């Protein structure tokens, strides 16, 4: 679907990316920031998968009864890897946040900046 | 095998009924005054609606082996929906929410 030359499926990914970026930059709470990061990541994944789709395409599983065209399997493999990376980064970030809270008693950036 | 047309129309009917139930659940969720009534509306209608749509899907092209998955899915929805509604209502009760009293008007 296109509008004034813009691919709306791609634009949706940009919008999601920006929602995530807004959360990451504007929110003071660290957990909200990490959620924003996750939203950004999924936006990029959505972009990659969208680029691999094909008009009227089937999932890339060649079994009896399936017929070309198939969607490209490469983006799917990339996104699977990406999801695992995203979970790993999130887990480390959350462990760090727990540390920060145990030490400072807050997870708000505004308050953390005021502390020595 | 029953007539395909019969099966087909049964499937259509089930899907339509299911969507209607889900609509009712949505209305309940949006319009009802407190969490208990909303949970009541949502859990019942969702279980019935989702189950009905899924059964309709299972019927629509005969009853193949793959449709067992749909039946399993329907059972799952019917089991887990009320469970979460229960857990929620329990949490609401424990955190001290009073149910909405009809005679006092507005939500508590």
């Amino acid at each position, binding site marked *: 679907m296109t509008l004034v030359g813009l691919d709306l499926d791609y634009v949706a990914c940009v919008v999601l990316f920006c929602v995530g970026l807004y959360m990451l930059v504007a929110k003071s709470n660290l957990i909200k920031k990490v959620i924003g990061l996750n939203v950004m990541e999924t936006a990029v994944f959505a972009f990659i998968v969208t680029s691999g789709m094909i008009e009227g395409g089937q999932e890339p599983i060649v079994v009896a009864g399936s017929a070309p065209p198939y969607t490209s399997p490469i983006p799917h493999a990339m996104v699977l890897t990406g999801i695992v990376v995203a979970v790993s980064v999130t887990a480390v970030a959350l462990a760090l946040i727990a540390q920060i809270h145990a030490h400072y008693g807050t997870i708000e950036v505004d308050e953390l900046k005021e502390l020595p | 095998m029953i007539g395909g047309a019969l099966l087909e129309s049964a499937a259509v009917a089930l899907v339509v009924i299911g969507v209607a139930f889900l609509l009712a659940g*949505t209305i309940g969720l949006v319009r009802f005054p407190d969490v208990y009534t909303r949970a009541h509306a949502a859990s019942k209608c969702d279980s019935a609606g989702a189950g009905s749509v899924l059964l309709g899907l299972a019927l629509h092209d005969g009853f193949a082996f793959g449709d067992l998955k749909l039946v399993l*899915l329907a059972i799952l929805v019917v089991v887990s929906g009320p469970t979460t509604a229960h857990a929620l209502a329990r949490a609401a009760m424990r955190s001290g929410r009073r149910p909405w009293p009809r005679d006092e008007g507005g939500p508590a």
Partner: protein
Amino acid sequence: MITLFWAAAIALVTFAFACLWRADVGPTIQDRILAVNVVGVKTLVVLALLAAIRGPSYLLDVAIVYGLLNFVIPIAATRLIETGRLGREAPR
């Protein structure tokens, strides 16, 4: 038939917006979780509808995975609200 499925899917996603409004305004946390769960069930049905539209039955696996794990978040969240933490400790 496919048209009916598409129509049903579109209708359900449209209903989901209404539930999402409830999830946004609350007012209590339980309302929000409930509304999210309702959207979840609708999405699950739409997943099944999409599988039926696209054909192969293995596409239902997605819906089944979600159906099986559907209860995890509400249970964890309500547990957190009730006790302020998750899980249980073994008796000390």
